[in-house]
Protein backbone atom coordinates (compact mmCIF):
# COMPACT_ATOMS: atom_id res chain seq x y z
CA UNK A 1 0.00 0.00 0.00
CA UNK A 2 1.19 3.49 -0.77
CA UNK A 3 2.26 5.44 2.29
CA UNK A 4 0.34 8.57 1.41
CA UNK A 5 1.30 10.79 4.27
CA UNK A 6 4.97 9.92 4.26
CA UNK A 7 4.85 10.52 0.54
CA UNK A 8 3.37 13.94 1.12
CA UNK A 9 6.32 14.90 3.32
CA UNK A 10 8.74 13.83 0.65
CA UNK A 11 6.70 15.57 -2.03
CA UNK A 12 6.72 18.91 -0.27
CA UNK A 13 10.35 18.61 0.62
CA UNK A 14 11.16 17.89 -3.03
CA UNK A 15 9.06 20.89 -4.11
CA UNK A 16 10.87 23.23 -1.73
CA UNK A 17 13.72 23.84 -4.17
CA UNK A 18 13.44 26.38 -7.03
CA UNK A 19 15.64 24.37 -9.43
CA UNK A 20 13.45 21.32 -8.93
CA UNK A 21 10.30 23.37 -9.45
CA UNK A 22 11.70 24.67 -12.72
CA UNK A 23 12.49 21.11 -13.79
CA UNK A 24 8.89 20.07 -13.03
CA UNK A 25 7.57 23.05 -14.88
CA UNK A 26 9.64 22.11 -17.95
CA UNK A 27 8.38 18.54 -17.72
CA UNK A 28 4.80 19.74 -17.67
CA UNK A 29 5.27 20.35 -21.39
CA UNK A 30 6.25 16.70 -21.94
CA UNK A 31 9.25 14.37 -21.85
CA UNK A 32 12.71 15.88 -21.74
CA UNK A 33 16.25 14.62 -21.71
CA UNK A 34 18.57 15.41 -18.81
CA UNK A 35 20.59 17.69 -21.10
CA UNK A 36 17.46 19.64 -21.99
CA UNK A 37 16.50 19.91 -18.35
CA UNK A 38 19.96 21.12 -17.37
CA UNK A 39 20.08 23.83 -20.05
CA UNK A 40 18.28 26.66 -18.21
CA UNK A 41 20.31 26.11 -15.06
CA UNK A 42 23.81 27.30 -14.46
CA UNK A 43 24.79 24.23 -12.46
CA UNK A 44 26.84 21.11 -13.02
CA UNK A 45 25.49 17.89 -14.51
CA UNK A 46 26.02 15.99 -11.22
CA UNK A 47 23.99 18.67 -9.42
CA UNK A 48 21.15 18.29 -11.93
CA UNK A 49 21.28 14.51 -11.59
CA UNK A 50 21.03 14.90 -7.83
CA UNK A 51 17.93 17.08 -8.19
CA UNK A 52 16.41 14.55 -10.60
CA UNK A 53 17.03 11.77 -8.09
CA UNK A 54 15.29 13.71 -5.35
CA UNK A 55 12.31 14.24 -7.65
CA UNK A 56 12.31 10.59 -8.62
CA UNK A 57 12.46 9.41 -5.02
CA UNK A 58 9.50 11.66 -4.25
CA UNK A 59 7.70 9.91 -7.07
CA UNK A 60 7.26 13.15 -8.98
CA UNK A 61 9.17 12.07 -12.07
CA UNK A 62 10.33 8.92 -13.79
CA UNK A 63 13.70 8.52 -15.47
CA UNK A 64 14.31 6.09 -18.30
CA UNK A 65 17.53 5.43 -20.07
CA UNK A 66 17.34 4.93 -23.82
CA UNK A 67 20.80 4.18 -25.14
CA UNK A 68 22.95 7.01 -23.90
CA UNK A 69 20.09 9.43 -23.38
CA UNK A 70 18.35 9.65 -20.06
CA UNK A 71 14.73 10.81 -20.49
CA UNK A 72 12.50 12.16 -17.74
CA UNK A 73 8.76 12.58 -17.44
CA UNK A 74 6.25 13.66 -14.80
CA UNK A 75 4.28 11.19 -12.73
CA UNK A 76 1.14 12.67 -11.28
CA UNK A 77 0.44 10.57 -8.17
CA UNK A 78 2.01 12.22 -5.13
CA UNK A 79 1.61 15.79 -6.33
CA UNK A 80 -2.03 15.00 -6.91
CA UNK A 81 -2.50 13.76 -3.33
CA UNK A 82 -0.96 16.94 -1.92
CA UNK A 83 -2.95 19.12 -4.29
CA UNK A 84 -6.16 17.26 -3.40
CA UNK A 85 -5.65 17.81 0.31
CA UNK A 86 -4.94 21.48 -0.18
CA UNK A 87 -7.72 22.18 -2.65
CA UNK A 88 -10.37 20.26 -0.73
CA UNK A 89 -9.61 22.06 2.50
CA UNK A 90 -9.34 25.38 0.71
CA UNK A 91 -12.85 24.94 -0.68
CA UNK A 92 -14.05 23.80 2.73
CA UNK A 93 -12.61 26.75 4.64
CA UNK A 94 -13.56 29.37 2.04
CA UNK A 95 -17.06 27.99 2.24
CA UNK A 96 -17.08 28.06 6.04
CA UNK A 97 -15.79 31.63 6.05
CA UNK A 98 -18.65 32.63 3.72
CA UNK A 99 -21.05 30.98 6.16
CA UNK A 100 -19.47 32.79 9.09
CA UNK A 101 -19.84 36.10 7.23
CA UNK A 102 -23.53 35.48 6.70
CA UNK A 103 -23.97 34.46 10.33
CA UNK A 104 -22.19 37.60 11.59
CA UNK A 105 -24.33 39.78 9.37
CA UNK A 106 -27.52 38.03 10.46
CA UNK A 107 -26.68 38.45 14.13
CA UNK A 108 -25.15 41.93 13.95
CA UNK A 109 -26.44 43.82 17.04
CA UNK A 110 -25.72 47.20 15.40
CA UNK A 111 -27.77 46.29 12.39
CA UNK A 112 -30.63 45.10 14.58
CA UNK A 113 -30.51 48.42 16.44
CA UNK A 114 -30.53 50.39 13.19
CA UNK A 115 -33.47 48.41 11.92
CA UNK A 116 -35.33 49.04 15.15
CA UNK A 117 -34.72 52.78 14.79
CA UNK A 118 -35.78 52.67 11.20
CA UNK A 119 -38.93 50.83 12.20
CA UNK A 120 -39.76 53.61 14.65
CA UNK A 121 -39.27 56.24 12.00
CA UNK A 122 -41.49 54.57 9.42
CA UNK A 123 -44.76 56.41 9.28
CA UNK A 124 -47.87 54.29 9.65
CA UNK A 125 -48.92 53.01 6.27
CA UNK A 126 -52.51 54.04 6.86
CA UNK A 127 -52.74 57.52 8.24
CA UNK A 128 -55.35 57.79 10.93
CA UNK A 129 -58.65 58.66 9.47
CA UNK A 130 -60.14 61.88 10.41
CA UNK A 131 -63.48 61.53 11.92
Amino acid at each position, binding site marked *: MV*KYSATLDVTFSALSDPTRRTILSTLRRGHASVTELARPHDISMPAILKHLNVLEQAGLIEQRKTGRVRMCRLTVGPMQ*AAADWLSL*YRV*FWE*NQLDNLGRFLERTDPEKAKKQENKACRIPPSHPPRRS
Partner: protein
Amino acid sequence: MSHTAVASTTSLVVSRTYPASVERVFKAWTDANQLGQWFAPTDDYTTQASVDLRVGHEYRIAITHKGGNVHTILGTYHLIDPPRKLVYTWRWEGGPMADTLVTVDFTPEGEATKVTITHEQFTNTEDRDKHAEGWNGCLSRLPRLFAPTM
Protein backbone atom coordinates in the same frame (compact mmCIF):
# COMPACT_ATOMS: atom_id res chain seq x y z
CA MET B 1 1.63 21.84 24.14
CA SER B 2 4.35 22.19 21.55
CA HIS B 3 4.77 20.79 18.11
CA THR B 4 8.51 20.98 17.91
CA ALA B 5 8.56 17.37 16.76
CA VAL B 6 6.91 18.37 13.53
CA ALA B 7 9.04 17.16 10.70
CA SER B 8 7.26 18.85 7.87
CA THR B 9 3.83 20.05 7.03
CA THR B 10 1.39 20.48 4.27
CA SER B 11 -0.21 23.70 5.24
CA LEU B 12 -3.05 25.78 3.98
CA VAL B 13 -3.77 29.40 4.88
CA VAL B 14 -7.15 31.02 4.29
CA SER B 15 -8.19 34.43 5.62
CA ARG B 16 -11.16 36.77 5.58
CA THR B 17 -12.04 40.11 7.14
CA TYR B 18 -15.43 40.79 8.72
CA PRO B 19 -17.09 44.01 9.79
CA ALA B 20 -17.50 42.70 13.32
CA SER B 21 -15.66 43.01 16.61
CA VAL B 22 -13.00 40.47 17.43
CA GLU B 23 -15.04 39.43 20.48
CA ARG B 24 -18.06 38.60 18.36
CA VAL B 25 -16.06 36.60 15.84
CA PHE B 26 -14.21 34.72 18.58
CA LYS B 27 -17.51 33.88 20.21
CA ALA B 28 -18.98 32.66 16.93
CA TRP B 29 -16.06 30.26 16.78
CA THR B 30 -16.14 29.03 20.37
CA ASP B 31 -19.75 29.12 21.50
CA ALA B 32 -21.35 25.75 20.74
CA ASN B 33 -24.73 27.25 19.97
CA GLN B 34 -23.31 29.88 17.59
CA LEU B 35 -20.94 27.42 15.97
CA GLY B 36 -23.89 25.16 15.25
CA GLN B 37 -25.58 28.02 13.42
CA TRP B 38 -22.91 28.61 10.81
CA PHE B 39 -20.50 25.68 10.64
CA ALA B 40 -22.37 23.68 7.99
CA PRO B 41 -21.07 23.09 4.49
CA THR B 42 -24.36 23.92 2.76
CA ASP B 43 -28.03 24.32 3.57
CA ASP B 44 -28.43 20.57 3.11
CA TYR B 45 -26.64 20.03 6.40
CA THR B 46 -27.36 20.84 10.01
CA THR B 47 -24.66 21.20 12.59
CA GLN B 48 -24.61 20.29 16.25
CA ALA B 49 -21.55 21.43 18.18
CA SER B 50 -20.33 20.81 21.68
CA VAL B 51 -17.41 22.80 23.02
CA ASP B 52 -15.42 22.41 26.21
CA LEU B 53 -13.27 25.50 25.82
CA ARG B 54 -10.34 24.49 28.00
CA VAL B 55 -6.84 23.52 26.98
CA GLY B 56 -6.64 19.74 26.71
CA HIS B 57 -10.41 19.41 26.44
CA GLU B 58 -12.52 18.49 23.47
CA TYR B 59 -14.83 20.02 20.92
CA ARG B 60 -17.07 18.02 18.64
CA ILE B 61 -18.94 19.15 15.56
CA ALA B 62 -21.50 16.76 14.10
CA ILE B 63 -22.59 17.67 10.61
CA THR B 64 -25.76 15.87 9.57
CA HIS B 65 -26.93 15.65 5.99
CA LYS B 66 -30.66 15.89 5.42
CA GLY B 67 -30.42 12.30 4.14
CA GLY B 68 -29.23 11.23 7.58
CA ASN B 69 -25.49 10.76 7.11
CA VAL B 70 -23.44 12.22 9.93
CA HIS B 71 -19.85 13.42 9.66
CA THR B 72 -18.20 14.35 12.92
CA ILE B 73 -15.14 16.49 13.37
CA LEU B 74 -13.49 16.40 16.75
CA GLY B 75 -10.35 17.53 18.41
CA THR B 76 -8.63 18.97 21.44
CA TYR B 77 -7.80 22.56 22.25
CA HIS B 78 -4.08 23.19 22.45
CA LEU B 79 -4.13 26.94 22.95
CA ILE B 80 -6.93 29.31 23.87
CA ASP B 81 -6.13 33.01 23.92
CA PRO B 82 -9.46 34.86 23.86
CA PRO B 83 -10.29 36.71 21.71
CA ARG B 84 -7.13 36.49 19.61
CA LYS B 85 -6.05 32.93 18.96
CA LEU B 86 -7.17 29.30 18.97
CA VAL B 87 -5.12 26.21 18.25
CA TYR B 88 -6.81 22.84 18.13
CA THR B 89 -6.45 19.43 16.59
CA TRP B 90 -8.82 18.29 13.87
CA ARG B 91 -9.90 14.79 13.05
CA TRP B 92 -12.81 13.07 11.30
CA GLU B 93 -14.40 10.60 13.70
CA GLY B 94 -14.20 7.02 12.56
CA GLY B 95 -11.76 7.96 9.82
CA PRO B 96 -8.34 6.46 9.61
CA MET B 97 -6.68 9.86 9.54
CA ALA B 98 -4.58 11.03 12.43
CA ASP B 99 -4.96 14.55 13.78
CA THR B 100 -4.30 17.62 11.75
CA LEU B 101 -3.78 21.00 13.36
CA VAL B 102 -5.89 24.12 12.97
CA THR B 103 -4.73 27.55 14.10
CA VAL B 104 -7.21 30.42 13.97
CA ASP B 105 -5.94 33.97 14.44
CA PHE B 106 -8.44 36.75 15.14
CA THR B 107 -6.80 40.08 14.36
CA PRO B 108 -8.56 43.39 15.00
CA GLU B 109 -8.33 45.80 12.08
CA GLY B 110 -10.01 48.95 13.31
CA GLU B 111 -13.65 48.01 13.78
CA ALA B 112 -13.20 44.89 11.69
CA THR B 113 -11.67 41.49 12.38
CA LYS B 114 -9.41 39.47 10.19
CA VAL B 115 -9.69 35.71 10.60
CA THR B 116 -6.73 33.65 9.42
CA ILE B 117 -6.98 29.88 9.38
CA THR B 118 -3.85 27.81 9.09
CA HIS B 119 -4.63 24.14 8.63
CA GLU B 120 -1.66 21.82 8.82
CA GLN B 121 -1.23 18.19 8.06
CA PHE B 122 1.69 17.61 10.36
CA THR B 123 3.75 14.52 10.58
CA ASN B 124 6.55 13.48 12.84
CA THR B 125 8.23 10.14 12.61
CA GLU B 126 6.02 8.58 15.29
CA ASP B 127 2.85 9.74 13.63
CA ARG B 128 3.98 8.88 10.16
CA ASP B 129 2.70 5.31 10.14
CA LYS B 130 -0.60 6.33 11.66
CA HIS B 131 -1.03 8.95 8.97
CA ALA B 132 0.01 6.61 6.24
CA GLU B 133 -3.21 4.68 6.01
CA GLY B 134 -5.42 7.70 6.05
CA TRP B 135 -5.26 9.48 2.80
CA ASN B 136 -7.38 7.21 0.68
CA GLY B 137 -10.34 7.10 3.02
CA CYS B 138 -10.15 10.72 3.99
CA LEU B 139 -9.81 12.13 0.53
CA SER B 140 -12.56 9.95 -0.81
CA ARG B 141 -15.06 11.13 1.79
CA LEU B 142 -14.22 14.82 1.69
CA PRO B 143 -15.55 15.90 -1.70
CA ARG B 144 -19.11 15.01 -0.76
CA LEU B 145 -18.94 17.26 2.23
CA PHE B 146 -16.78 19.99 0.80
CA ALA B 147 -18.67 20.66 -2.37
CA PRO B 148 -18.90 24.43 -2.71
CA THR B 149 -22.28 26.05 -2.38
CA MET B 150 -23.58 26.84 -5.81
